[in-house]
């Protein structure tokens, strides 16, 4: 056995015999395992719930009796997004944004959680997701296991004996490094299992292996930090204090500072402010429910000219349905403008926050992990856009039914009496306007391309670790 292997083996023997380190390794591994399992169960439950809700929402919509088509526009329906396979490890923004949207006329609703129970569940677990454990707690475990790996030998004087016996300090440090890395990898085990599971469930193998590789790099970085700090300090206590401070700065403070400075550098208007601006814009459009609103005068004129008639009553189409389509179109344009602007702002902020990956490996792995898993802001925005397209199509199909299948006269008189109301209906067969919503994950290529820069950040950290270890070796020799 080489010297490196001997050192690695002895490190493991030490952990085994001094029960403390072994306990930490076991606790760390179990904790990630349990959180992985809990999260998987939670997600499975949510996914069943979602399927159930989706089906019943759809069925309810289709089962509606003959009605006025605009009532169906307001009846609305739900769409749900199936989360990506890797979100059992990395829920990403899903934990905050929700995965279902209520689609209805004249409104773009925000995404929400499938049900209240899950909402509270997600916020409760969002702090203890496997990704949080892996990104924040595993480094702490590595610190607890490894802070004394070199200082302990200094305090005991065994390092001195080794050096005067002529050991190659690189061999010593590499041996300890491999031991520490192997204990860290043990805590990645649940992640690897999840990745295999995701592959079996149709996730691209390229994605799952990149996902695991990213976390391995992260472990390599933290093991390097821990070992280097232990190597340049003389006392266990000093090494521990420095490492815990580093942990607080790198895992807790800098990522926070990252997101708050993003908000400061690229401020976005508050929701209230934004809503106000939208309202103001929309008011100029006129009320689509009221065909006599002056805002639609020009539309009316054009139509009368086109069909060469004098009154709207003589039009071959239901003018009220035309107005509904026209105003939904205008309104959607404005809503989309604001939505795109907001998404742009969110992306800018996310992008600024992600640059903190050059300052802390925790932000680097977080960005990488979300982008690879397909639970990033980008994916969520695509969901919003696709859901919006679906909403628009569905509302406009109903408005078209309104225009084409319901006479203007019946429509205009619908509030006169009960019989008139009955007459202002269209056949329930027209409710078959819902198209299947299936949200596809981003392709492997897209996700790999998007996350490339964050892989680069992780590699940058690995390079830094090599330099740090070289410095440590010089200090010891």
């Amino acid at each position, binding site marked *: 056995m080489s*010297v490196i292997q001997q050192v690695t083996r002895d490190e493991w023997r030490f952990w085994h015999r001094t029960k403390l380190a072994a306990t930490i390794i076991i606790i760390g591994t179990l904790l990630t395992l349990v959180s992985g399992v809990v999260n998987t169960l939670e997600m499975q439950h949510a996914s069943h719930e979602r399927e159930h809700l989706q089906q019943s929402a759809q069925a309810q919509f289709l089962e509606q009796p003959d009605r006025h088509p605009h009532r169906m526009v307001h009846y609305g329906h739900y769409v749900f997004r199936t989360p990506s396979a890797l979100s059992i490890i990395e829920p990403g923004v899903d934990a905050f944004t929700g995965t279902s949207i209520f689609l209805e006329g004249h409104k773009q609703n925000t995404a929400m959680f499938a049900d209240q129970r899950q909402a509270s569940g997600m916020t409760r677990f969002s702090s203890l997701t496997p990704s949080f454990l892996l990104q924040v707690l595993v480094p702490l475990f590595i610190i607890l296991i490894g802070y004394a790996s070199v200082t302990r030998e200094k305090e005991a*004087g*065994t390092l001195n*004996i*080794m*050096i*005067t*016996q*002529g050991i190659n300090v690189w061999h010593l440090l590499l041996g300890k490094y491999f031991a520490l890395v192997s204990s860290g990898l043990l805590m990645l085990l649940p992640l690897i299992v999840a990745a295999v599971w995701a592959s079996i469930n149709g996730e691209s193998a390229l994605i799952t292996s990149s996902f695991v590789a990213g976390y391995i790099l992260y472990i390599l970085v933290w093991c390097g930090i821990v070992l280097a700090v232990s190597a340049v300090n003389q006392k266990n206590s000093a090494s521990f204090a420095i490492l815990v401070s580093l942990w607080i700065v790198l895992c807790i403070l800098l990522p926070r500072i990252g997101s708050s400075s993003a908000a400061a550098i690229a401020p976005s208007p508050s929701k209230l402010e934004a809503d106000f601006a939208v309202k103001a814009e929309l008011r100029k459009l006129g009320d689509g429910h009221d065909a006599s609103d002056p805002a639609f005068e020009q539309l009316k004129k054009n139509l009368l000219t086109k069909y060469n008639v004098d009154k709207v009553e003589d039009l071959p189409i239901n003018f009220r349905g035309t107005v509904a389509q026209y105003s939904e179109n205008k309104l959607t344009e404005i809503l989309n403008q604001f939505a795109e602007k907001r998404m742009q702002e969110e992306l800018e902020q996310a992008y600024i926050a992600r640059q903190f990956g050059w300052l802390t490996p925790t932000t680097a792995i977080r960005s990488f992990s979300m982008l690879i898993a397909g639970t990033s802001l980008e994916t969520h925005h695509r969901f919003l856009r696709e859901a919006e397209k679906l909403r628009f199509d569905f509302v406009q199909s109903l408005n078209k039914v309104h225009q084409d299948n319901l006479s203007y006269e019946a429509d205009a008189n619908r509030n006169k009496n009960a019989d008139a109301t009955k007459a202002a209906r269209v056949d329930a067969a027209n409710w078959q306007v819902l198209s299947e919503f299936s949200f596809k994950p981003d392709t492997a290529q897209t996700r790999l391309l998007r996350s490339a820069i964050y892989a680069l950040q992780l590699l940058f950290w690995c390079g830094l670790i090599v330099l740090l270890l070289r410095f440590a070796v010089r200090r010891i020799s």
Partner: protein
Amino acid sequence: MQKDMIVASSLCVRFAQQTVLDKVNFNVGQGEVFALLGGNGAGKSTTLKTFLGTIAPLSGTATVMGMSVSKDIDSIRQKVAYLPESVMLYGHLTGIENIKYFLSLADIEKSAPDIEQALMRVALQKSAWCRPMSNYSKGMRQKTAIALALLREAPVLFLDEPTSGLDPNAIDEFNRLIATLAADGATVFMVTHDVYGACQVAHRIGLLDNGKIVGMFERKDQAHIDTEEVHAAFSARSQQ
């Protein structure tokens, strides 16, 4: 007998403003036990550390087996065994495991009988061999470290205060062990403040005071160096 296993010539060491070693000269021959005697802060450990390459001298040279510490420290380290003042091997390992581990770090393979033989030679009681070192006494740890040196076949031993903290019986036993090692050809350089012990075991004693060698005492025909004489010189110095 080779005269120059360990040579210090005009060694000077300074820490910040303080001259810790001032033109120290001596040489130790093969099979010789040389004791550097001095009070606290005289510069004994510093001398030892310059030979181990952990302290660089300001001027002068230190050589071991003809190799210069400043140039060939890696080759020197293959040849020397160092016992720090408090020998602490790994508490979580047994005596035998400690020896095996340190041998493997030096890339040396020894059979189990070889290891047992070495432990017999240093007279470590058999019952302790397979007990964790955390409950060894200092004497037992020292024996283990010497067994390790034997197995490494290190021709040169550097010992820092080897008898401090040992009981009188253990000191006698230790001195006998050092004598047999030297008789078998090992070169022993030890630093100590124990006048009596040094006189018992050493062939020659260098008296170090304030970074200077202020006296050399040699065993001539007698079995020991004259304790009275050394003691007189030592106390005269410490009273100044």
